[in-house]
């Protein structure tokens, strides 16, 4: 317990140190006017007008990221499971996932704008980013069950479907949860990038427009909000994982 308390103290100290450093650099003006003190950014956010603006942008980005996260993760797990049920297609699926991931998300922009439109692009890019992380986790998760377990299922005469449902999927739970904790920040990043292709609103839009208009405080506010969303998603899923691994490990 004391080790845990020490860990928490150290984490808190690290966060405080980092924030203090940000503030100090801004105050001293080490990197010029493009690095404002943290307190200025926070007080800027506290203004009702900016708060509203950020709130709307956040809602749009979080919506796209959340939908993309759910969609991408679900499709990834289904595709990985398909690879188990039809071993013939397994190598093809792996290669397809690698190829899709090798294409820079930004290069998909024009293609997506013409197919799913500007509004849909953030969701789809979030889904692709989350989906790849999830596919890797699901593929290794489904291969995680031990040889003796597989032997027992073989000797009991288990079908592929039964083996998948009763052995491979439950055995994959810890790695699937790991995958989700990686997929969530990836989805937020994907949504922000997706918004650069002309979404009507969102944190990505705020980032681009504030950068072009030299609205330094807004730029920082938008960047910090994105980071906080990402961090929140990660923390929620880490909590979920620690709840579940107790049972599945």
């Amino acid at each position, binding site marked *: 317990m004391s080790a845990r308390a020490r860990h928490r103290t150290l984490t808190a100290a690290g966060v405080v140190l980092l924030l203090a450093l940000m503030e100090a650099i801004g105050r001293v003006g080490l990197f010029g006017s493009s690095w404002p003190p943290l307190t200025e950014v926070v007080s800027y956010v506290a203004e009702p007008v900016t708060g509203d603006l950020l709130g709307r942008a956040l809602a749009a980005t979080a919506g796209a990221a959340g939908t993309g996260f759910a969609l991408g993760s679900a499709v990834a797990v289904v595709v990985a499971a398909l690879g188990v049920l039809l071993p013939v297609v397994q190598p093809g699926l792996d290669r397809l996932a690698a190829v899709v991931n090798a294409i820079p998300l930004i290069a998909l922009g024009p293609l997506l704008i013409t197919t799913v439109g500007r509004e849909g692009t953030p969701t789809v890019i979030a889904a692709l980013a989350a989906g790849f992380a999830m596919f890797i986790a699901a593929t290794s998760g489904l291969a995680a069950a*031990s040889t*003796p*377990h597989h*032997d*027992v*299922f*073989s*000797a*009991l*005469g*288990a079908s592929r479907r*039964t083996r998948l449902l*009763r*052995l491979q999927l*439950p055995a994959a*739970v810890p790695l699937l949860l790991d995958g989700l904790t990686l997929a969530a920040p990836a989805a937020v990043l994907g949504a922000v990038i997706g918004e650069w292709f002309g979404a009507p609103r969102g944190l990505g839009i705020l980032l681009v427009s504030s950068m072009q208009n030299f609205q330094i405080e807004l730029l920082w506010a938008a960047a910090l909000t994105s980071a906080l969303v990402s961090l929140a998603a990660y923390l929620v899923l880490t909590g979920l994982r620690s709840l579940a691994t107790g*049972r*599945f*490990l």
Partner: protein
Amino acid sequence: MIKAEHIAGLPEAPLDTSGSPGPAGPPGQPAAIVLRAVQKEFALRRGRTVQALDGVDLTVRAGEFVALLGPSGCGKSTVLRMVAGLDEPTSGEVLVEDRPPAALVRDHRLGVAFQDHALLPWATTFANIALPFRVAGRAVDRERVGALIDLVGLNGFADARPRQLSGGMRQRVAIARALVLDPEVLLLDEPFGALDAVTRRRMNFELARIWAERRITTLLVTHDVDEAVLLADRVVVLTGRPGRVRHIEEVALPRPRGRDITRDPGFHETVDRLTELLDESAE
């Protein structure tokens, strides 16, 4: 030298003595498991192979308990894996009830327990024992599962997960799981190998009791001579790698075999003789 003894100990010879009295298996019964001239080679890297088994002949009659005894690495587990359909012989033939092992497996009529209990860590004792029903696509017979929990002495642990159980309890769950569908053939690969000596002996007597209730054709792989003699109707001693049948011992000790059997001089005499054979086999 080994070759000569190998011939002397051919499995058909004891089969011919089926008229011999004593409780050593039901002599008139048909063969349930047959291995004929079974060879097994495993591929190593660069095209090299290692021979695990060389011309193994073995017959287990229906309702018989046969223990396969041998030094480690002699391929005795490979024999069991081939009977379970988990491995294929390189040459020769493995038949279970006159059919390839896969046929028995497909009908869900095989029970197995390994040294690694291989229980599902996320499932309770009840769910682990009920697993074969689910794999076979049958409705879980709750009474049957309950009766097996009773049989292996795990009353009150139905809702415990494997990690909350001791090593001996886990093996009992594994054995209950192997028995739950009332299999035709039971295969046990060092099921008590990871247990301490005292627990192991206690589990031996429990298995003898459980087995006596319904004499399932059983093949037990072990390197513990006492365990083999305690449980089996016949003990088959294999040589070191490549494994061959070196000797077959009919165990004529009366059943049921309880703890008092260890005071039987015949028990010790058999154990000593087999231990000596095993010692020579290992060389």
